[in-house]
């Protein structure tokens, strides 16, 4: 774990010094326990010019490892997943990779879930079926970062 953190911080440093040249696509980590949803979401997100889905994970635990290796520009997490859910993964990621923007993508779009997700370090909470809202949210985040 300490080793990973070490590598991570090195990579973090790299990421910053080269911070997003215009022609390099934005790298998104996509996390959902359903392969079908992953597939559809990937197609939807990669349909947007300048975005690419650099990595995929099937649960929160995998997402944390993948995020460390991939150093994405943004992670989209399903709320409800086996092994480790999106909220718990978000909590851990927000402390180990503080600059990584996190979006929770959930079926359970209630104020309570939203409150919980935000408190665990997510920037945005979006209803799962509203693909246009998701794209809008990601746009907004990238715009703010840029």
């Amino acid at each position, binding site marked *: 774990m300490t080793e990973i953190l070490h590598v991570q911080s090195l990579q973090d440093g790299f990421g910053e010094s080269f911070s997003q040249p215009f022609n390099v696509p934005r790298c998104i980590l996509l996390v959902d326990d359903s392969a079908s949803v992953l597939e*559809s979401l990937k197609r939807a997100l990669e349909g947007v010019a300048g975005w690419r889905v650099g990595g995929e994970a099937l649960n929160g635990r995998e997402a944390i490892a993948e995020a460390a290796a991939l150093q994405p520009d943004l992670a989209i997490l399903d709320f409800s997943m086996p092994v480790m859910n999106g909220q718990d993964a978000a909590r851990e990621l927000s402390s180990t990779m503080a600059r990584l923007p996190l979006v929770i993508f959930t079926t359970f779009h209630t104020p309570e879930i939203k409150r919980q997700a935000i408190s665990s370090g997510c920037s945005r909470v979006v209803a799962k079926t509203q693909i246009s809202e998701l794209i809008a949210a990601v746009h907004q985040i990238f715009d703010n970062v840029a």
Partner: protein
Amino acid sequence: LIRKPLPDGFRKGKKQKVSAKVAVLLPLPPTAELEAQVMNEHQPLALMSQETEARQQAGTQAGQSDEIFRLLVESVKDYAIFLLDVEGKVLTWNQGAERIKGYRAHEIIGRHFSQFYPPEAVESKWPDRELEIAKKEGRFTDEGLRVRKDGTTFWAHVVITALRDAQGVLKGFSKVTRDLTERQELEERTRKLNKELRNRVNQLQETQRQVELRTLELQKLSSDLMRVQDDERRKISRTLHDELGQELTSLKIELDLQNSALDGKRLVPAIEAAQRSLSKVRNLSYLLHPPLLEESGLLPALHWYFDGLEKRSELHVNFDYKPLPFPRLPRDLETTVFRIIQEALTNVYRHSGSEDARIDLNQTADRLTIRIRDFGKGISSTASAAGVGISGMKERLRQLNGEFKISRAEPGTMVEANIPLIDTLTEVSF
């Protein structure tokens, strides 16, 4: 027999205390032959008879009362009362003796009284021993088996008294025998009844134990049933949500994508159909078992449920909870609380006619209290007794040693559930 003049030799032993009493014991003679025998052989009898006769001859009142006494003894039917000579031969016989032992007077007078004993008692010389003791101690009392003329036996109470004259010379014995067979039978019957009673009591206790055991088994079964039902619902709910739900989500996203690639209109009906299917699958899954309950806990699950219910029913739910933030609880407890609120709100929605429901959830160190109140028309007594939902709530609470109360709240109905937490937290595992 008795009234006959006595030989000279028998006259001198007169005057004794026993005489008056013993004289009356004398029965009428059975035969002339025996009569003579007795006269010759049995001093005491002769002695007493002599006195009796003397009195009778004197024509005294005493003589008359002796006669009455004689008749009295003679006619006693419940006791065998008779005299034995010093050797143990039967001298007199009364009706009781005949009834109890079966011999007519002429059949037994002059015979040795060992006749009344079982062979083994005779062999061991028990009858003689009885006389010995009576002779020595004045009296002998015993209970034991005696033999009737027909060979059958009966249980007898026997008193043998030695009869002595004024000089202390043994003259014979009186023997009073009582047939205790009936008492014996009663005692035996009482013993049997007591034994039966003990058996019945034991059986009853055993039955009661069985009933208690079965009740426990039933309770366990019912608790298992609830658990199995919850597990099954959870599985079906998961399958619906995670498999079918995700596929429909994927379909919806694909349709969205295609639609925006086209004119943004043509696929709208298809997108709406996919959305409706998705909503239905989610609702179904959610009603079977809220996935949020396990992942995020009671509060998110409840909020989700209230949102859905408000949309479906236009029932406004006012929810208050303490403490803040609300902690995670053991799974069984969270499921129970959720199901109770779900059940109660379903009743509010279906039966109360109320537009508002108020829910208070309060957790303290040692208990959890849930209050669900509506402001509708109030529950009827039959509904409170028979409601399936209510019995389900009660059963769930019973498993957690909780209490359930339903009451009129003027207006409306108040449902209260109270769950002790110490028991629950130690007994229920995650």
